[in-house]
């Protein structure tokens, strides 16, 4: 079954078409990476799929619910870890987790249990009583993903989750994201080719709002005759530009 089915999904602004007639299916439990240069429409796609922005036309069906007609139901199925740091800086790590658990409708007892469990799962116990705003970028990203998972989402959107992190912090986050495969359908947007290669089941390449190609990393390499995903990406982007 498809977790996400985009049907002619389009977002137009007065000066630009950010997402242009996107048709895409993502299977349940799949980790799908959206690649593209700046302004390709990755973040706009994620914003529409996560109900933060309404499509100009078209629709997307998330586990049977429409992002146009069933926004509230969709919100119960999804979670987002935005590109920028998205924590409450003066709350402790544990309080941040409790807040998001409450936002998903969990009562006090359940919110505490969820927070305890996710803090343990993400190795946050050592910083649980520290203010989130005082922690390093790596910790904040880790908390951000933990916050996104506390509501038990069926679909998770990770927008540039490792942007600006050092090699070690990135490797740790990759392990966490890899552990979600098969249980949570994940849409990952990234600039890093090696990230997409390491983590994703399939990759979609976007340019100027259009989806140029979709496939596994191996399929994209075969399609373009390139040995590396990075070369395949450049080939497809240039080919898209030439067209």
């Amino acid at each position, binding site marked *: 079954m498809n977790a996400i089915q985009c049907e002619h999904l389009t977002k137009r602004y007065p000066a630009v078409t950010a997402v242009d007639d996107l048709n895409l299916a993502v299977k349940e439990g799949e980790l799908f990476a959206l690649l593209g240069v700046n302004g390709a429409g990755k973040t706009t796609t994620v914003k529409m799929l*996560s*109900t*933060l922005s309404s499509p100009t036309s078209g629709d997307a069906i998330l586990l049977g619910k429409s992002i146009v007609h069933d926004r*509230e139901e969709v*919100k*119960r199925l*999804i*979670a*987002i*870890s*935005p*590109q*920028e*740091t*998205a*924590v*409450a*800086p*003066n*709350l402790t790590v544990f*309080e941040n987790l*409790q*807040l*998001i658990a*409450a*936002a*998903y*409708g*969990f*009562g*006090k007892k359940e*919110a505490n249990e969820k927070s305890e469990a996710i803090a343990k799962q993400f190795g946050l116990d050592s910083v649980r009583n520290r*203010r989130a705003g005082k922690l390093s970028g790596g910790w904040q990203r880790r908390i*951000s993903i933990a*916050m*996104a998972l506390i*509501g038990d989402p069926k679909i998770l959107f990770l927008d540039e989750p490792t942007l600006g992190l050092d090699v070690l912090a990135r490797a740790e986050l990759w392990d966490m994201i890899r552990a979600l495969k098969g249980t949570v359908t994940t849409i990952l947007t990234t600039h890093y080719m090696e990230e997409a290669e390491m983590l994703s089941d399939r990759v979609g390449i976007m340019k100027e709002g259009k989806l140029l190609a979709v496939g596994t990393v191996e399929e994209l390499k075969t399609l373009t005759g390139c040995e590396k995903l990075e070369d395949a990406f450049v080939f497809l982007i240039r080919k898209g530009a030439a067209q």
Partner: protein
Amino acid sequence: MKTYRFAVRTAKEILRDPLTLFFGIGFPAVLLLLLSAIQANVPKEVELFEISHLTPGVACFGLSFLTLFSALLIAKDRSGAFLQRLYATPMGAHSFILGYTLPIIPIALAQTVVCYLLALILRLPFSANLFLVLLAVLPNAWLYISMGLLFGSILTDKQVGGICGALLTNLSAWLSGIWFDLALVGGVFEKIANLFPFVHAVELTRAMQAADFAGALPHFLWVLGYDLAITIAAVFLFLRQMKKN
């Protein structure tokens, strides 16, 4: 539960910021001490900063910082991705609006209590009427809290510093009759000042302190009118930015 947790978060974000304690409690206290010291050093027949007249004004002036704290928090939340994350959860608009505004009411009450406790130490005569001041705090706090929601919904965090931190606190200080009688200046200045809610907030507090309900009523109506108008505008603007996000 959603609204409660978000309200708790608002309170913690504000109270854990050292600037809150300095401007919210410390600055009004310093003003009260300083102006009382000046009053103590002028001849007794000159009533420059008489404590029973000054305290309601300083208590109201202190509330103007609540606009700054509230607007700054909302603007910062908007500028980062924190609100984006929450907008993608099942939390409704009412939870955001109530969560941003309700927790500031007890902060306003606490601020006023501290101001009056200090005034009592500075020889403000104790009277049961002082408890009536807490009733006046509610519409006055509502005024400044709704302004916080309004400015936080339309300004960036840097703009909030200028508009609420400098402009609003100055308007609130100069057009409120706290430090001098507006009638002494008279003319256009007095007329303009009377069109703003600040002087009415101060006069409402003074009238309640004196248990002068008839005198309080017209000022209460002015403040209430502003409360309703600003709240409607603030809710509209908050929902608009929420949709835009």
